[in-house]
């Protein structure tokens, strides 16, 4: 099923692990070179920036190539039928297969972009076809999510693509959602539990099969799917989502919802449980997802209860997070229970620092510039960090 040369693929995974040990100074240069020679990888996978450049150019060629063909065939009124887009999708897919099989492209930017365009064109053509066959555009949620699911599952399996596995998960989620919704009047009340069970089952299956050799090459997709299923498990039971989405679908405006204590408990405790289990099992995915969801829990709470003004809440939260991270990093200067606050792997130091500095300039550069033009308006000065007021 996988389009790539499996020997090279497993060599690639092996060499990557060896390189990791090499950067930790556990393996010498000569050993690394010997292993690389013994396990050759002949994929064409250029540097990340070259990959981006190749991707941009592929978009340009595809865009103008499609335009060129359409222009030539314009007299035959090709634009008026979905068949033309099926043709373009197939054309892209053929080029994609050729690039991968003949030229051995593997994450080169060219194959990435061709894959996305193929998927986008096929889905577009399908939606069009469905609309013209059934005669009512925009009401075919089941069919669209089903075809999206089939297509993205196929592409993610064949090309080991993470983005496609993301679409596969989301479309499967949507498919179950719409199917359950159309089953009857109780469907909306039970919806959160159905979707929560779906997420939980997906996560459980992933964890159970994590060492299964059959999915060895999909480690990237598996990681992503774990994060997605954990997030959707939380979101489906989040008070805000359950209440507001329920209102939206029923067209009502409720003051409270049945079982609200359960959903509030879920909203508040799940992130903490993720973090606790993440620490206990030394599971980075659980830990990071938990940290992310803490923010969601805080925002949900603030949406319904304004106990203190925003700025006080910000300052308290900022101080707590600062103190927390200071204390923990001090505490873990000496490794304790296998935890450390030091980096265990050098992560291409220079590049990370540069990326970090650009994030800083992007998020803080609005700070403290007096604004001369508006100086007669009270409060015209722009103090403090920018770019964060939106969500609070």
């Amino acid at each position, binding site marked *: 099923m996988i389009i790539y040369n499996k020997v090279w693929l497993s060599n690639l995974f*092996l060499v990557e692990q060896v390189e990791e*040990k090499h950067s930790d100074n*556990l393996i010498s240069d000569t*050993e690394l070179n010997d292993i690389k020679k013994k396990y050759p990888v002949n994929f064409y996978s*250029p540097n*990340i920036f*070259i990959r981006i*450049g*190749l991707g*941009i*150019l*592929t978009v*340009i*060629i595809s865009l*103008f190539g499609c335009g*060129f063909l359409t*222009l030539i065939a314009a007299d035959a009124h090709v634009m008026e039928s979905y068949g033309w887009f099926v043709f373009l999708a197939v054309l892209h897919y053929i080029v994609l297969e050729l690039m991968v099989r003949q030229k051995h492209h593997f994450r080169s930017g060219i194959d990435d972009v061709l894959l996305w365009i193929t998927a986008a064109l096929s889905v577009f053509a399908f939606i069009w076809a469905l609309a013209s066959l059934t005669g009512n555009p925009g009401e075919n949620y089941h069919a669209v999510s089903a075809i999206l699911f089939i297509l993205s599952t196929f592409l993610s399996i064949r090309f080991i693509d993470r983005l496609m596995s993301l679409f596969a998960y989301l479309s499967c989620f949507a498919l179950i959602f719409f199917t359950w919704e159309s089953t009857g009047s109780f469907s909306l009340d039970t919806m959160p539990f159905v979707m929560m069970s779906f997420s939980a089952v997906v996560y459980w299956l992933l964890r159970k099969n994590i060492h299964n050799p059959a999915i060895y090459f999909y480690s990237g997709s598996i990681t992503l799917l774990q994060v997605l299923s954990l997030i959707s498990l939380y979101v489906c039971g989040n008070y805000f989502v359950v209440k507001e989405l329920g209102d939206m679908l029923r067209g009502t405006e409720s003051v409270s919802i049945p079982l609200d204590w359960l959903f509030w408990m879920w909203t508040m405790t799940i992130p903490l449980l993720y973090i606790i289990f993440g620490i206990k099992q030394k599971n980075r995915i659980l*830990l990071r997802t938990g*940290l992310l969801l803490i923010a969601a829990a805080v925002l949900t709470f603030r949406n319904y209860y304004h106990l203190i003004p*925003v*700025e006080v809440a*910000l*300052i308290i939260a*900022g*101080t707590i*997070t*600062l103190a927390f991270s200071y204390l*923990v*990093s001090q505490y873990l200067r000496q490794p304790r229970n*296998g*935890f*450390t*606050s*030091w*980096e265990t*792997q050098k992560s291409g130091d*220079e590049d990370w*620092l*540069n990326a*970090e*500095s*650009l994030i*800083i*300039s*992007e998020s*803080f*550069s609005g*700070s*403290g510039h*007096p604004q*001369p033009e508006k*100086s007669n308006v*009270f*409060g015209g*000065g722009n*103090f*403090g*960090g920018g770019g964060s*007021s939106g969500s*609070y």
Partner: protein
Amino acid sequence: MINSIFDKLYNEGVLSDRSFQKIRDSQKSPLFSVHWELKTVLYLGILLLSTGLGIIVYKNIDSISHQVVLLFIAALTAGCFTWCDKIKAPFSFEKVESPGSFFDYILLLGTLSFLSFVGYLQFQYEVFGNRYGLATFLPMLVLFFIAYYFDHIGILTLAITNLAVWMGVALTPKDLIRSVDVSDERLIYTYLGLGVLLLTSGYCTIRLDIKRHFSFSYFHFGVHLTFIALLSGFFFYDYGPALVWLVLLLIISWLIYRQALTRGSFYFAMLAVIYGYIGISSFTMRSLFMLKDDAVLFLGFSYFILSGIGVILFLINTNKKMQRDDHLQ
């Protein structure tokens, strides 16, 4: 069996006893690093805190005493800088290792509250009067000083964006996209001047060997600004004079491309190629549209298809060249 891959390599004899033992030892007591998690929480803390302080000053600007606010911000600034100064490594023109990420972010907090302090002073007491240039020039100098004194790249980028503010232009990507105005001649020259200044600074940084690792920030902003300014100039002027801008653009992209090749920087090599390609394509389009012929559409489409393939081949070749040089090192 700890890890089948390394067992396999060891049995095949490509892994020496010593390395294998080292790997086994490291896997017997694996360390779980929470470095990046802590760092992100730290970043979030600074973001929340500085935003919160900003709002509190902004909201209470006419109720609480100005002296109290000023005193508080000043105390925070002084506290941060004193602490950082105490634990920092001695100054050097080389790269100085930071004492830790907490240090980096406290320094950032100090710098941000310093900026608030200056902004507040100007807003409330108009210390700089109507000399708005001075009100941005002084903080910029201080920012550059902090960046070099404490060796902090993040603050260097803040200093560079402040330099742009002082010159009257915006620099961060989101502002750039919003505010670049190709119809303002003066603005184009300002951007070009700033871009060239930054490129020169980056070059001098390497040439004079002063904080060599700062060169990326100078080049990053310099390259984007210069190219955007040159492209804007190309579109601003009539066909004849615009050619001067095009030639300038091509020369500069060639220079940056050569530099990137010798320094092994894929990022700048890609930028030079893409911006150069945008320049040539813009020229082709402008020339084609002057033809006023039905064939223009066909010619334009064929141009993009063929040139796109050509540039792809060029990029692939560049990648090959650079990776080969990589192996030689």
